[in-house]
């Protein structure tokens, strides 16, 4: 990495790589913050690089757009149809950040945004919470009475349904999650509905077919 002031076409390429690698839009300030102070381009330089990048994308499938939370490279709307065909068969996956957030809300509910950020060690983007709330997997279950009255999140009935869980209790316990062997066994059991039916404890005959049911607890 060159620490001297770089020429504008190099700056343009750096910005392009950042925008394509980032899952979220980037603000001008964020981009500038990545540069060492003595090599930091001016705001005007960066704006110019962004403009040059936008122009250079003429005739390509991507375009540079400024949205609410910053600059974003997105595919042009006329190709959305192709992309939806792609996603139809194989829906896109949620980001790691979203999954971790959901998992923390699930295991640590009721939990505030600050607590999630604390455990994950990074800021939590508003869009992740929004997706989880919209999906109706997560809801606000209360507020903590500290300055700012932060909302506390918990999971919903719909979350249990969509993940095919009877209740939160049937999730692997913390010690099981820690121990890989135990986790594998617990997941195995969760995926096997026959094992589930043994839990009701009504019929001994059922339990006999699940010999290791006890060893899992």
């Amino acid at each position, binding site marked *: 990495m060159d620490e001297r002031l770089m020429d504008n076409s190099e700056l343009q390429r750096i910005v392009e790589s950042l925008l394509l690698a980032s899952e979220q839009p980037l603000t001008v300030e964020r981009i500038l913050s990545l540069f060492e102070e003595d090599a930091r381009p001016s705001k005007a330089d960066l704006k110019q690089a962004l403009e040059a990048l936008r122009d250079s994308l003429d005739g390509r499938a991507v375009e540079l757009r400024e949205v609410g939370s910053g600059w974003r490279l997105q595919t*042009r709307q006329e190709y959305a149809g192709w992309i939806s065909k792609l996603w139809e068969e194989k829906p896109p*996956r949620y980001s790691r950040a979203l999954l971790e957030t959901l998992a*923390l809300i699930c295991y640590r*509910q*009721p939990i505030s945004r600050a607590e999630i950020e604390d*455990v994950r060690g990074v800021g939590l983007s508003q869009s992740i919470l929004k997706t989880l709330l919209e*999906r109706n997997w997560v809801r606000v279950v209360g507020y903590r009475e500290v300055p700012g009255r932060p909302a506390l999140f918990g999971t919903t009935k719909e979350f249990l349904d969509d993940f095919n869980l009877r209740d939160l209790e049937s999730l692997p316990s913390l010690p099981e999650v820690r121990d890989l062997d135990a986790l594998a066994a617990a997941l195995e059991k969760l995926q096997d509905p026959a094992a589930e039916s043994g839990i009701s404890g009504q019929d001994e005959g059922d339990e006999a077919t699940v010999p290791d049911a006890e060893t899992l607890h």
Partner: protein
Amino acid sequence: QTQVENIDSAIAKVRGEPLFKLPEDLYIPPDALEVFLEAFEGPLDLLLYLIRKQNFDILDIPVLKITQQYIEYIGLMREMRFELAAEYLLMAAMLAEIKSRLLLPRPAVEDNEEGEDPRAELVRRLQQYERFKSASENLDALPRVGREVFIARARPEQVSMAVALPQPTLRELIFAFRDVMLRAELFAHHQVKREPLSVRERMGRILADLAGGRQAQLLDLVEPAEGRLGVVVCFLAILELAKAEMIRVEQTEPYAPVFLQLVSGRASTNGLGEDIETAYSG
């Protein structure tokens, strides 16, 4: 940049001179021995290191000296009461055998020797090991996704058709949880006991019951149908909520009904919640 060089510097710090001098007089400062040992992947690695680093001279592998050094290292480790892996002792035995063969007069008829010459076997193993050791370094040097290479991503602003929403599997979810807990080193923390998730679920339900400023009596929240365990879970959930300052638990006088409500702006008087809070934080 290899680990061995890192060790060089680690030990040099202790002793104030470069490590490659050390094997010559075999002196390793006791506090550096552990660092030294951790750097090796096993007896082959240690042996290879002794051969490669000692004299910088491959033509003159002084098997006798190396053997001595190796065995003295082993001795040193035992003196220091390090738990020795069986592999190190096995190697020591192998070296001792080679050494004894060298020292003993050669048998007149060598052709009748049974089995493979242990020296040749050792050299073969060292060579093989070294090949894969450098192969692993080459592998590590390849550009890796997430390190040198990043996937370029862009999406359309909106997708017109009804596209199926992503549905992660439970497995993915739990592994994400595991990763984040491992990363935050929370598993090591004292709070990782067998924490009943039913309590956490119940906490959410109680908060919902108390939403909108409703007050409830302790007994209102207990569902008899849930049995004794259900009562315990409910009570634990209330304690947790009070501890986390999410609800206030009030009792105006001894034996009076216990009221619960969401914590609001006003200061709590005689709040049981505060007592619990101090009890927990103490």
